[in-house]
């Protein structure tokens, strides 16, 4: 698919008097790795919840994979993958059972499931552990597995909400390799993170402050535009009240 994968226009969400997301407008191109940055409480998670159909926008509109998130939620859900900061696999199921479960939920055929399971296990080097319970895996492996499972049905867009929190630097690097591989296959990636070095890995980033997008662009352009040495400095400059 070419063109625009995510399109948000004046997207807003209010909880009572509090405006969590305030008229954000942005596009994400197909196949792009888009970084969604912001301090805690800046509105990232709320924005993602709206884009994934978990939360209804108060006003404004957004399309994901060409479908309106409010009007065609069911269609949107078919074309997206999602991995939250909290771990999303079942710890008391084996690796293989988890993969099979999610394959079934996304309506893959048995043949697809077994083919993709084999490919996924080989890629992660987990072939020998397929029948181990997920709870026995180290956190880093679980996160990589969770990402691979979120990509199992080859979604057009995948949302990753702080997928690398609590993970060691080496595993984070391997995690990002998986993200690039998905992007190379044409999957659009929207990723939120606290690690600002990770922002440099993104094609473009947006920085949210107080529910609004304060800066948006390629990391290099943003640094030139705001005369900062790193995204880290830029982030502090924008987020500081």
């Amino acid at each position, binding site marked *: 698919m070419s063109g625009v994968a995510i399109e948000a226009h004046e997207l807003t969400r209010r909880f009572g008097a509090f405006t969590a997301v305030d008229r954000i407008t942005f596009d994400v191109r197909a196949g792009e790795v888009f970084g969604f940055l912001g301090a805690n409480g800046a509105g990232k998670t709320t924005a993602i919840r709206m884009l*994934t*159909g*978990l*939360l*209804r926008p108060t006003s404004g509109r957004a399309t994901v994979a060409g479908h309106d998130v409010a009007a065609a939620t*069911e269609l949107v*859900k*078919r074309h*997206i993958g*999602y*991995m*939250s*900061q*909290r*771990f*999303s*696999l*079942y*710890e*008391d*199921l084996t690796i293989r*059972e988890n993969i*099979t*479960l*999610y*394959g*079934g*939920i*996304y*309506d893959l055929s048995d043949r697809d499931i077994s083919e993709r399971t084999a490919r996924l296990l080989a890629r992660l080097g987990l072939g020998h552990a397929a029948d181990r319970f997920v709870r026995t895996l180290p956190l880093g492996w679980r996160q990589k597995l969770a990402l691979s499972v979120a990509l199992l049905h080859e979604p057009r867009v995948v*949302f990753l909400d702080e997928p690398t929190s609590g993970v060691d630097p080496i595993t984070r690097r391997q995690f990002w390799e998986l993200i690039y591989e998905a992007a190379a296959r044409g999957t659009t990636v929207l990723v939120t993170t606290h690690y600002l070095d990770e922002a440099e890995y993104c094609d473009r980033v947006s920085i949210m402050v107080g529910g609004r997008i304060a800066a948006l662009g390629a990391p290099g352009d943003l640094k030139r535009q705001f005369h900062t040495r790193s995204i880290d400095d830029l982030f502090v400059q924008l987020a500081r009240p």
Partner: protein
Amino acid sequence: MRALAGLLRKEVYHILRDRRTLVVIIFLPIVQVILFGYAIRNDVSHVRLAVVDPAPDEATLAMRGRFEGTGVFRIVAVVPRARDLEDLFQRGEAQGAVVFEPNTAAHPDRGVLVISDATEPNTGSLVTAYALSVLQTYERDRPATAAGVRIVPAVRMRFNPTRESSNLFVPGLMAFILTIVSSLMTAISLTREKETGTMEALLVSPLRPWQIIAGKVAPYIAVGFISVVGVIAEARLIFHVPLRGSLLLLLVEGLLFIVVSLSLGILISARTSSQRVAMMGALAGTLLPTMLLSGFIFPIESLPAPLRALSAAMPARWFVLVIRGVMLKGIGLTYLWPPTLILLAMAAALLAASTRAFHERLDA
């Protein structure tokens, strides 16, 4: 459909692999029935009886013999003066006493005083009733030629002739167990998915809310159903509780009650976000009311009016009515359609409410 089958399989794995919970689900009903069957009884036995007999004669000895002969009473002390009783009661050595007047054989009209320790009112009144019945039997059997006025105590109590309190508690126990298995387990398993974050993964998937709910609760319907069958079997085999009505009707009504309880569990889980709170909610919201207000332990008629009104809102109350009807009275839908309809209405309302609560939560 494949997605739903996968969800169901997953839930079965959860149940089978959580050994501790599985053991609780399976053994709880069995242990409860045994406990309630043997320990919590409304009938009394081995009552410690003191006798005040200042001048034993043939009449008082005959009556004492009758007390011992019943098997209910055990005479622990025979004392000459009524004031000796005080000490026996204080120390709890006697639960009841029979006080004879001197020369009872010649003057039966002097009467017999029956005293009981009413610190536990139920036991107290039971002891009194038993004692009176012993005296009445003696009176009735006395040769008509004997002189004197008959002592006919005015107190009357209808006995459960075989004194089987198991007949009373088993139906209530079934409601109790189903409530535990259905609402508690459902609430816990749903909130666990919220806690671990897997619920979000399911919610962003193309699964419909009803599929998620069905996949979560269907296995617990099966577990609840197994419990019902287990309790009925145990009641029949160990406690010989009669099953006078239709077994099929009983099972269908059991299923209906399971659906009601499950929906309550879903409702509770929709309002809570941690397993601990869900457990408290299920305990306070379903188990205690089931114990106290369903007529399981305390007769509904003896509740104060506001609680009596509240008990009408308890699904368990109607279910207990149905089980007692089917098991003990052997009646069918001809008589039981009103409680059945009420349960059906409750199931429909609660299912609708819980599905809606599930939807609304997405927007919170």
